[in-house]
Each structure stands twice: as C-alpha cells, then as structure tokens.
C-alpha cells in the first residue's frame, strides 16, 4: 500500500514567482522567506517522494463563477499553468498520477463526499510556486494529484469539513495498491487580506497558534466557523483551510521537520511547515 511520508504546508504568494525569475532570493526583503525552504528541500531530497497530493485554491484560472465546485479532484494526465492576468510564462506541464486520481475519486464518493472530477485542469500559482520552492532546480520530480477547495464564492466548506476531506484523502492514499511514496501538500495563507478597508490585515498571534496546533492538535482550528476564520485571518487568510485539509491526511504521530514564519511577503504573513509521519 502507498506510504504517506509526511505533509508540507506553505504560502503561495504570487510575488514569489517574480522574485525567483529575477533572482532576488538573497535580497534582504526575500532572504528570511527563501532561506526557510532549505531544510524542507533537504528533507525532500532524503525521503524522495514520487507523488504529491496537493490541496489548494484556484484563484480564477481554472474555474469561474459559472461553475464553481466546492471540492474538485484532478484526474488529468498532465496539468498546465496559464496566464492569470499578468503574462507569466507558461511552464512545462506537471505530470498527473491517474491511478491515484481515480482511486481518490472512488474512495471520496464512497465516503459520501460530493466532488467534482476534472479530466482537464489548469493549475495556477497555488500549485506552481510551492513546487518550485520545494524543487528549485530542474523539472518537478513528482507526479501530482490536485485537490481544489473553493475559497472564491461563499459559502465555503467548513474547516471541519475540510479536515474530514483530508482524512478521507489520507485513507484513500494509504489504501492505494501501490508502493509509491506520497507527500501531501497544502498551499495558501497565512493571514492576509487584499480587499476592503481592512486590506493589509495580519494576525501574527493567531497564525503562530495555528501553526503550533498543526503539529499535535490538528483539530484545534476546526472549532471555528469560516466567518470566524475570516474575521481572525483575513478574507484570503481563509486559505488555511488547505493546511487543515493536508493535515487531515496525516494519521498518527508526526514530527516537525521544519517551520518558518515571516511578515510580510507582499501583503501576506508567510508560513511554512513540514511534518514527517513517524
């Protein structure tokens, strides 16, 4: 059966792409952020995953309001990125993992999750940038299964529900008849708000408590409603739902490999957490 090596959760701020393209990683503004990924890259080099199941939110590339799924699972042979409005370069496609995609889909529906399945799917910066942060050189060495959670159109799924989704995804991976090595990823957050008079909102103590809870108290954040989480972390801070889902996929005890937290990257409190299943 497939093995979940661990989980990595990370911010995915679009400005990261520009910083990488211009080689700004060691500049004073960026260094505290990029340096945080070294230990995670090292860990990935040691454990060598084959597949990444990635919980993320689409920001208006693959989905529009005309058809907006709450949960969408990618089942495409490959995933391409595309222009999100700023003319970013199109990257080489990411390879899919169709056997796992369909195994996840079968398991999730059997577990009464009403998901959307996508046999073609564009992936935005929420997928491309974390993969580049984890593997900065060369092509991405893992195949991917994207799991997209709606954060665009309220009502959003609850934190409790996202955690349960993660748990079901974890069960599915562990029951997958394969010897592939899998890492789960959650991208987005941490606290930030782009819109309204409260633009620029950051909540450092909540973020730090949240990151701490992710290690040994993963259901802590599920006590809050989406409304409460928006109030506490910002309209886009609600992306912490991806962290909660990814954590749900890890069963049993975990060891913290590394964490990093830095304010600000663009408008965002940037977080990073890598957990190893023990």
């Amino acid at each position, binding site marked *: 059966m497939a093995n979940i090596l661990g989980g990595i959760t990370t911010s995915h701020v679009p400005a990261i792409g520009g910083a990488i393209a211009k080689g700004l990683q060691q500049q004073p503004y960026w260094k505290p952020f990029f340096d945080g990924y070294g230990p995670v890259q090292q860990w990935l080099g040691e454990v060598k995953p084959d597949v990444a199941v990635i919980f993320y939110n689409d*920001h208006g590339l693959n989905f529009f309001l005309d058809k907006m799924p709450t949960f969408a699972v990618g089942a495409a042979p490959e995933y391409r990125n595309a222009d999100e409005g*700023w003319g970013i370069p199109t990257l080489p496609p990411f390879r899919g993992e169709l056997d796992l995609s369909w195994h996840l889909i079968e398991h999730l529906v059997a577990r009464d999750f009403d998901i959307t399945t996508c046999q073609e799917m564009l992936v935005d910066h929420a997928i491309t940038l974390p993969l580049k942060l984890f593997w900065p050189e060369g092509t991405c060495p893992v195949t991917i299964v994207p799991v997209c959670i709606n954060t665009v*159109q309220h009502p959003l799924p609850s934190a409790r529900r996202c955690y349960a989704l993660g748990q079901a995804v974890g069960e599915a991976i562990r029951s997958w008849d394969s010897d592939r090595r899998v890492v789960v990823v959650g991208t987005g957050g941490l606290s930030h708000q*782009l819109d309204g008079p*409260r*633009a*620029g909102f950051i909540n*450092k*103590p909540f973020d730090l408590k949240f990151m701490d809870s992710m290690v040994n108290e993963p259901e802590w954040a599920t006590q809050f409603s989406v409304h409460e989480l928006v109030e506490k972390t910002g309209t886009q801070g609600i992306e912490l739902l991806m962290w909660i889902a990814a954590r749900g996929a890890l069963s049993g005890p975990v060891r913290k490999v590394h964490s990093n937290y830095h304010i600000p990257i*663009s408008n965002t409190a940037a977080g990073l957490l890598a957990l190893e299943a023990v």
Partner: protein
Amino acid sequence: MDRYPPIPGTTLFDGAQARKGYALNRMCFSFNEAANREAFRADEAGYMQRYGLNGEQARAIRERDVLGLLAEGGNVYYLAKFAGILGLDVQDLGSAQTGLSKDEFKAMLVRANEQPDTLAS
C-alpha cells in the same frame, strides 16, 4: 447570509455580492487572456458594454475605484486581473483602499511584526 456580525472593513463575497457583480466579474475573468486585455485597453467603453456592465460598475472601472468595484459586487480574485492591466500590485490596491500612501501601507505590513506572539486568551 446576514446572520453573522459584520467583519470590520470587510465584505464577504457571498451570493448577494455575486448576484450584483456577475457581469463585472465575468469581464475581469476574461483578462486572463492577453488578447482580451489588449481589446479592453483599446476600447474600454466598448468592452464593458459587450460584457453588460451596469452604469455603476462602468463608472467604478473608469475611475479605477477599487472600493467602488467591491461595492458593486466585484470579487477580488477577478479584480486583481483588472489591476494587472493597470500595472498595479496588491500594495497599490491596499493603498487605494485604506487611504495610506503605498509606502505607509508597506510600513504598516512590516509593523505587524510587533504584534504579540501569543493569543490573548
């Protein structure tokens, strides 16, 4: 939808906002494509008319009124693509929405480091 207490300085993009802003959001979603961005630049009024924006939405676009666009049902993920056409980043948007200069807005972000490490309760 209004069962919950309002969040300061925040409008949730719920069904009410979506119903108001559909045409505006649909237009801004089209800005994913470079050709569409070019067409908009070449003839803003014509482009807005093709997407059926109402008078208030068109005014807010013409005046680059970010708070006005949100009030008219714009969703920030799509409005960001409009901001991209204008060459504005999210600190520019933050400055426009808070009344701070861009430098003041960026300084405010950095000052968030002074918040406590632990929650009050």
